[in-house]
């Protein structure tokens, strides 16, 4: 067997292109295309009285202006509610262009198409929209009191109320020796990838077909949505994902208004049309996340063991809910982390506000849940006077208890059943890595120098690799190279490298002979998308299964050609040979030739497969029953339920006694995502996740005023961390293979971000002896907390 690729730190095949400026992102395409700009609402809530485009018509280079009035057929209907749920009793979604009412600042009201973006913006600026402002509902409190309604047909602004429980939690809490109640809040943030969204559509009137490039996390589903909206046969629409400059969740939502408007305009104008989202548009019209308010009631015994846990929380879903209840459902279930409260009850309300809609952002409700659970653990430890790690250990689910049934229904509608994990071992590794037991000595030393330091930790369990399925296609070309494709998309996770590593091992071909394509519906039409840390689990398993099929077929064909038993054959470096007698063998390329009986020889290799060249039995069909021409296969992986990765972070901070500035001295991560396909890539995912966790804890928040104006809609005031704000991250791995999939892998994409706010809040609290119940926290806010304390 050739050197094993699985588990190796292979540098990425994508990078040669990307570091030399040869990436192809959405706006790098379609130089011949007309460009679109949108007129967006400056009001959070208003009726549209009149739209006057007269002035805009004078703009040189203007091609078209569209408003709701122009939308026909299903384009005139609201965009789809992607994930319906029985509890989502009042689901509302937006129109591609606002109809009579706008429900958040930034909602699209009109689309301008012009010769280029400059001219499109000239025209957009000259369109006069007359609005009749309505009272805005902003923030959870104003949504709950419901003095005003976002949607007049949605009483109380309540989109959904959902309850899950494993027993009578209140009774358990009431009879517990100790009870605590906490109010915990996380503010709004957003994915903010460096590349915004973008769509390029080309209509071929001769072929009556539409080719759409879009910066999305799901090409196959965008394809279906466009076909449905434009009333085109699905087979006339193809969607291709170019290089995507980051997604982090915001690009899994679809179709964005522009994803149907731009193709629709391209069909009408019979010219290519492109829209590239600018940064301001991204802030006011692409999805946000995180904003939730939680009330916790917990009962526990003298040792800090959880006897009953009851959580009630309010989720600000913004103006619309196209993505259903995924975020709050994840919070309500993943909140439990590695712990096993005797009884658990959770109830949440998903509330409408006149703000940008809320859909998953990396972590997807888990950072909130982790913050709630871990703050609760710290509060119990403080109240009991116990070490924070001890309280956690006492509540851990033990390895012997795996698989562990939490008795809840997860975001995929399946049982919340942990497949594997060793939480005590993870914690032991973390304590060692950060030096938990030596910290008091360090604190004392620091205190002597007049420095304030603190340490905190947080644990999480993450359901990864949710279904329903992903598939793979693997084909050996006659030159021996291998093409692999899977339907989900890539936004920089190194999928092409990771999947090639898997195929290289399964098929026995050199890594550099493998080319991987993702997110191109011309190549693979059945897929779900890239989210929930699912690519390695889903597409990784799918291409592994597919490669095995191809391998079996190669061996069958080769055994005839080599007149050797399949069992005696092996594939080494792209060559099928008899084990122990490598001189007797044929290249996979030749096997590919033989797999495809030919009448015509288009090249020399093909000649070997023509009807007079092969010594085939004239009395059997050239393609045997049950076989198909070509050395290729398609297969799918569809697990019964998710696999559960876990991890624990510890943070050491120093706070400035005068300015209340917070500096992270150490950030330690112990991470268990099962087997690692490429540790370099997994660590990169953790680094990036932690940076977003640090941002969410200390810098990033989206601030709305009471009128629904987003006050920091730019990179100048939305404080995404620079290198100067992100600490060096120390990582240790634990490997508990998943029993659920052929590779033993678990997802790793979101993990890093989950415990950030919880761990950093704990560390600051430990340094400052203040009580932190709300994140993020700024120096100014810490300064206020200090004053309240004194």
């Amino acid at each position, binding site marked *: 067997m050739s050197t094993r690729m699985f588990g190796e730190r292979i540098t990425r095949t994508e990078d040669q292109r990307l570091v030399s400026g040869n990436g192809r992102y959405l706006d790098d395409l379609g130089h011949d295309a007309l460009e679109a700009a949108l007129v967006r609402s400056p009001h959070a809530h208003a009726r549209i009285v009149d739209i006057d485009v007269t002035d805009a018509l004078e703009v040189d280079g203007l091609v078209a202006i569209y408003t709701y009035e122009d939308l026909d057929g299903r384009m005139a209907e609201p965009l789809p509610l992607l994930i319906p749920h029985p509890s989502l009793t009042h689901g509302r979604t937006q129109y591609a262009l606002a109809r009579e009412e706008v429900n958040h600042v930034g909602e699209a009201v009109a689309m301008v198409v012009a010769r280029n*973006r*400059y001219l499109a*913006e*000239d025209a957009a*600026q000259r369109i006069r929209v007359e609005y009749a402002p309505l009272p805005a509902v902003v923030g959870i409190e104003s949504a709950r009191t419901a003095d005003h309604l976002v949607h007049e047909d949605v009483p109380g602004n309540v989109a959904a109320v959902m309850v899950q429980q494993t027993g009578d939690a209140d009774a358990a809490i009431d009879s517990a020796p100790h009870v605590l109640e906490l109010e915990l809040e996380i503010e709004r943030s957003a994915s903010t990838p460096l590349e915004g969204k973008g769509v390029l559509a080309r209509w071929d009137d001769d072929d009556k077909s539409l080719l759409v490039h879009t910066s999305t996390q799901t090409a196959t589903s965008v394809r279906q949505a466009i076909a449905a909206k434009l009333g085109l046969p699905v087979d006339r629409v193809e969607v291709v994902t170019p290089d995507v400059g980051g997604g982090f969740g915001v690009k899994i939502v679809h179709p964005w208004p522009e994803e149907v408007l731009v193709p629709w305009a391209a069909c009408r104008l019979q010219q290519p049309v492109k829209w590239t989202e*600018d*940064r*301001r548009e991204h802030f006011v019209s692409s999805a946000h996340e995180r904003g939730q308010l939680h009330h916790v009631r917990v009962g526990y015994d003298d040792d800090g063991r959880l006897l009953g846990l009851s959580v009630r929380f309010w989720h600000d879903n913004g103006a619309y809910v196209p993505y259903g209840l995924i975020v709050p459902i994840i919070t309500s279930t993943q909140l439990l982390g590695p712990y096993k409260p005797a009884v658990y009850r959770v109830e949440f309300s998903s509330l409408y506000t006149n703000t940008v809609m809320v859909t998953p952002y990396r972590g997807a409700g888990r950072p909130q849940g982790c913050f709630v659970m871990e703050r609760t653990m710290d509060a119990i430890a403080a109240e009991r006077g116990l070490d924070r790690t001890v309280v956690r250990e006492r509540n851990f689910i033990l390895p012997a208890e795996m698989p562990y049934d939490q008795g809840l229904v997860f975001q995929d509608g399946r049982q919340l059943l942990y497949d594997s994990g060793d939480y005590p071992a993870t914690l032991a590794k973390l304590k060692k890595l950060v030096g938990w037991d030596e910290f008091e000595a360090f604190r004392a030393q620091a205190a002597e120098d007049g420095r304030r330091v603190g340490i905190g930790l947080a644990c999480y369990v993450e359901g990864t690799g949710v279904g329903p399925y992903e598939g793979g296609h693997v084909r050996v070309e006659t030159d021996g190279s291998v093409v692999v494709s899977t339907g989900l998309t890539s936004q920089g996770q190194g999928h092409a490298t990771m999947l090639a590593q898997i195929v290289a091992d399964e098929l026995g071909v050199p890594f550099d002979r493998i080319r991987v394509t993702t997110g191109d519906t011309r190549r693979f039409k059945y897929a779900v998308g890239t989210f929930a840390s699912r690519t390695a689990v889903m597409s990784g398993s799918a291409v592994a299964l597919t490669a095995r099929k191809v391998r079996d077929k190669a061996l069958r064909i080769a055994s005839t050609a080599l007149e050797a038993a399949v069992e005696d054959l092996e594939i080494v470096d792209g060559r099928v040979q008899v084990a122990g007698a490598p001189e007797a063998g044929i290249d996979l390329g030749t096997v590919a030739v033989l797999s495809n009986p030919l009448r015509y020889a288009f090249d020399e290799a093909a000649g070997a497969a023509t009807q007079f060249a092969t010594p085939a039995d004239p009395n059997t069909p050239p393609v045997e029953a049950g076989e198909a021409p070509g050395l290729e296969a398609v297969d799918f992986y569809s697990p019964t339920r998710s696999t559960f990765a876990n991890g624990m972070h510890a943070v050491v901070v120093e706070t400035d006694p*005068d*300015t*209340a*500035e917070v500096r992270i001295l150490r950030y330690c991560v112990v991470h268990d995502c099962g087997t690692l396909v490429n540790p370099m890539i997994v660590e990169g995912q953790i680094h990036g996740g932690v940076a977003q966790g640090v941002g969410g804890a200390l*810098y990033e928040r989206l*601030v709305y005023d009471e009128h629904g104006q987003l*006050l*920091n809609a730019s990179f*100048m*005031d939305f*404080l995404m*961390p*620079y290198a*100067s*704000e992100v600490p060096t991250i120390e990582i240790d791995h634990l490997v508990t293979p998943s029993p659920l999939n052929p590779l033993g892998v678990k997802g790793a994409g979101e993990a890093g971000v989950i415990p950030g706010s919880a761990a950093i809040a704990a560390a600051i609290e430990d340094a400052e002896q203040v009580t932190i119940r709300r994140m993020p926290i*700024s*120096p*100014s806010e810490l*300064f*206020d907390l200090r004053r309240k304390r004194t």
Partner: protein
Amino acid sequence: MKPSPFTYHRPASVGEAVATLAGLGGSGKVLAGGQSLVPLMSMRLSAPDHLIDINGLAELDMVEVTDGTVRIGAGARQARVERDPAVREAVPLLGQALANVAHPTIRNRGTVVGSLVHADPSAELPAVLLLLGGTMELRFPDGVREVAAADFFLGPMSTAVRPGELAVAARFPRQPAGSGSAFVEVSRRHGDFALCGVAAVAVTDPDGAITSARVALVGVGGTAVVVDVTPAVRGSGGDLDPSARDGLVDGHVDPEGDIHATADYRRQLARVLTGRALEQAVVGARNGGRRR
């Protein structure tokens, strides 16, 4: 986010630039480094009908260090001034302040005079000009006028520059011999505008006693504010009495709260950073004054 159309002027001389500006009345806007103006234009918050580009004017791209002053032309980039050894020797505070101005990439294009004319209440450079008692040189068709820093900054974003006038240079007096200086600030992220920033100049006598201690604070009012804390010097030892120092600062700052920090927190920073800046400045002064 693309700018509105405008008529572009590239004058061949300062005279032509001034004539063009004057001819346009209020409708002309000067483009120097453009690190503030261009994003404003891309957001269409600024849409001048005419843009007068002075980047090509060699006569403005100069830094003159004389016995008395450092004169910086409107074409001189912040990065160049920051690195100029003669400037560092004559007015160390300028380099100390420039190191806090955004990021190096911005300083490669941004100009010192452009920043002064922009008059942002959180900008570092106006504090330096005010603290050192510098002047601005304003050209108009019939001549030049010098405006003292104290009369130049009228409020947030507003200065004494009249329509049709071109700020051609800024003059920074040499820091007194035996003086030390420092600039410290707190911002949310490295390179962001300061929540509060303090420029300090201290002078000590041969025995190390403080004879003069002055600061200029940014981010705590409509313009940078100068505070003379010399009265807080405590008798013989010649050190500053912290509470007296804080009292003087409190009397001069009137910060506003915003989404990044409350007014109270800014007041706290004003005190703390004044203390830190002066501490560094005094150390500098006691180590033989302007560091060479």
